[in-house]
């Protein structure tokens, strides 16, 4: 009979279950990064001159920047000259329905447990599939069109709504924000664009599945979401990647803009390939996500379930500029084997009566390292600003690490900033109790972890909560999930 430590170890060391690749012919950019690469990408995408110029500005900024040093992990050696910065499926013809999508791609989604065909029927989920760099299928477009909602690939938006893109691109995450954002500005491949007009409540979850599928191809998605006055949108980004030996850099940028009385809910389920149990391979997920509550009484809420990647390094942030604006960050980050997560949020209270809520649940297993890093900044004008932070860490086994770095900077004496933190271990008593009811250790751990993450999972749109739960279980089927 194996003891529960052995089982937990086994679970914690489980190989990634979603590792497989799809064979779709690629069109690659030459390896390396220079102005020519950027011109190649821009030309491939038939971009207007202003877009190319913006990319080149990003590249100029990038050249002057260095990798940061403050992170709580050892930065892997990254040779950005060895990556190829563009890959696209060759078949580029317009598709009117999912039936026209490459059957192999559909089979891939099947394996991931994301039956698109069912999703169409499900509570109205529109799916804009980004497969590698180019969107190959967009659904529910017509219905959205009727409401004046724009939901398309970023590349398409550059062509069809250049004024909107020009007006907002880089206004939340400037081309020179940080080295990875600058890199993204220079070489971004594709991504999604959403515009919700004044007074419109988007009637369905907007959702995109990203997937890295080319060897040695950096992924540089760029997403821009604008919610105009009195509008609402819920957006879900979910991803899972095939098995790879080479490390892959993923440096996405997401910008959210919420105008007066509008609300953006952005949910992420991240399951990039985490590397094998010795930490070889796996995705570097270095993402810049930031939203601005520009208008009064606007709201932005980030929810993330992070289970994948060799290194997850990101701080989805909210700038609360309007008065009475509200920001939220709900996070579950799971690490196992040799995975690293250094994640959290930054909330900037600028307007009066702004509120924020941060709920972070870190779960570490194996030899992994899980760091929460959060900044709550209150500006001088932010009278009566309020923040509540709850930051919990759950440890599975005794070789993993959990760290919490909360930074609070308040320049207004009427502000209230609260921080609570706990660290706990999955108890043998809990596991034994569940064992005694006929539940094996693997499932017991999954059950306990799902319970632990409940508060965050509850924030996800229902269908995705189900999926996220399944993902946590599979991951911590491997690792407390």
């Amino acid at each position, binding site marked *: *009979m*194996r*003891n*529960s430590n052995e089982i937990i170890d086994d679970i914690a060391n489980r190989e990634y279950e979603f590792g497989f690749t799809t064979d779709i012919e690629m069109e690659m950019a030459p390896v390396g990064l220079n102005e020519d690469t950027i011109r190649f990408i821009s030309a491939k995408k038939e971009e207007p001159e202003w877009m190319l110029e913006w990319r080149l500005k990003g590249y100029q900024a990038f050249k002057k920047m260095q990798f940061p040093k403050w992170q709580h992990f050892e930065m892997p050696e990254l040779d950005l000259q060895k990556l190829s910065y563009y890959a696209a499926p060759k078949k580029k013809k317009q598709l009117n329905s999912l039936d026209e999508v490459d059957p192999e791609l559909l089979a891939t989604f099947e394996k991931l447990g994301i039956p698109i065909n069912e999703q169409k029927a499900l509570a109205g989920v529109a799916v804009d599939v980004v497969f590698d760099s180019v969107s190959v299928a967009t659904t529910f477009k017509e219905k959205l069109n009727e409401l004046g909602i724009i939901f398309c690939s970023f590349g398409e938006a550059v062509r069809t709504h250049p004024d909107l893109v020009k007006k907002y691109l880089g206004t939340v995450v400037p081309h020179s924000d940080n080295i990875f954002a600058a890199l993204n500005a220079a070489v971004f491949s594709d991504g999604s664009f959403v515009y919700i007009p004044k007074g419109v409540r988007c009637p369905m979850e907007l959702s995109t599945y990203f997937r890295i599928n080319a060897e040695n191809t950096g992924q540089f998605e760029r997403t821009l979401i604008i919610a105009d006055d009195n509008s609402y949108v819920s957006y879900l980004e979910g991803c899972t990647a095939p098995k790879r030996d080479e490390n892959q850099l993923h440096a996405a940028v997401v910008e959210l803009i919420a105008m007066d009385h509008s609300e953006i809910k952005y949910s992420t389920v991240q399951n990039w390939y985490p590397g094998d149990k010795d930490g070889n391979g796996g995705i570097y997920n270095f993402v810049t996500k930031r939203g601005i509550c520009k208008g009064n009484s606007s709201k932005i809420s980030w929810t993330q379930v992070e289970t994948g990647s060799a290194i997850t390094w990101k701080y989805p942030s909210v700038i609360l500029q309007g008065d009475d604006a509200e920001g939220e960050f709900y996070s579950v980050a799971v690490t196992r084997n040799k995975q690293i997560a250094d994640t959290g949020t930054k909330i900037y209270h600028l307007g009066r009566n702004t509120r924020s809520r941060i709920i972070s649940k870190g779960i570490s297993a194996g030899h992994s390292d899980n760091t929460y890093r959060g900044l709550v900044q209150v500006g001088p004008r932010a009278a009566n600003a309020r923040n509540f932070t709850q930051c919990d860490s759950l440890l599975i086994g005794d070789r993993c690490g959990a760290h919490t770095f909360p930074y609070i900077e308040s320049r207004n004496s009427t502000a209230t900033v609260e921080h609570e933190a706990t660290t706990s271990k999955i*108890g*043998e*008593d*809990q596991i*034994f*109790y*569940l*064992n*005694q*009811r*006929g*539940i*094996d*250790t693997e*499932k017991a751990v999954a*059950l*306990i972890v*799902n*319970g*632990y*993450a*409940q*508060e965050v999972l509850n924030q996800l749109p229902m269908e995705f909560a189900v999926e996220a739960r399944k993902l946590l279980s599979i991951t911590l089927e491997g690792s407390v999930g």
Partner: protein
Amino acid sequence: MLTIKNLHAEVDGKQILKGINLEIRKGEMHAIMGPNGSGKSSLSSVLAGRENYTVTQGEVIFEGKNLLDMSPEDRAREGLFMAFQYPVEIPGVSNLHFLKTALNEIRTYHGLPAMESKEFLKLTKEKQQLVDFNANLMNRSLNEGFSGGEKKRNEVFQLAMLDPKLAILDETDSGLDIDALRIVAAGVNKLRSADKAFMVITHYQRLLEYIVPDFVHVLYNGQIVKTGTKELALELEEKGYDWLKEEVHQKESV
């Protein structure tokens, strides 16, 4: 149903069970009594398979199978249930979700399909009424914030739901007021049947006024030192354990 032969077990290098012999047949209700620290919880833990206990000698046969070879979850699936002396809390996991998982794991083990939600809810309602369990507690997180009494009653509710062959109740009565005790006892009595057996560990005779045992065993210092019928429980209530301890020590010194 259950045969325990010369069972020795230790924990942290300390010998706790020192040769337990016990035979439990279908339909029987056995009470285990004994002073604090005599090894009652240890016995139930060893039977349920708690991993920090090491069996050093002896064997346990449960329904013709070697119990000690099985994992804790397989013991449960084979029909052994333990109501914990100290039930644990599992935050964020609803009582019902937990029970449904448990029930379906057991069904899968026996080659049965998972129970439909509708059927499950029906069963839930039936059992909840049978053992008079507070319906409001069913959707709460498992034992989280439950009072001591509520936790104990939840154990009995789970027992009713999972319908095991052999149920071990470890001091399910302690911490209950007299009304709760009556309800718990009534619940257990309703679950008694010709093909089930119970091992009820208790400190107090008073539970045995409601749940009438076929046998009473006294555990002392890791051994069963006396076996009798319900009258033995009354005698213990009256005279305490000291006379028994003396008897044991006299035997030892002979």
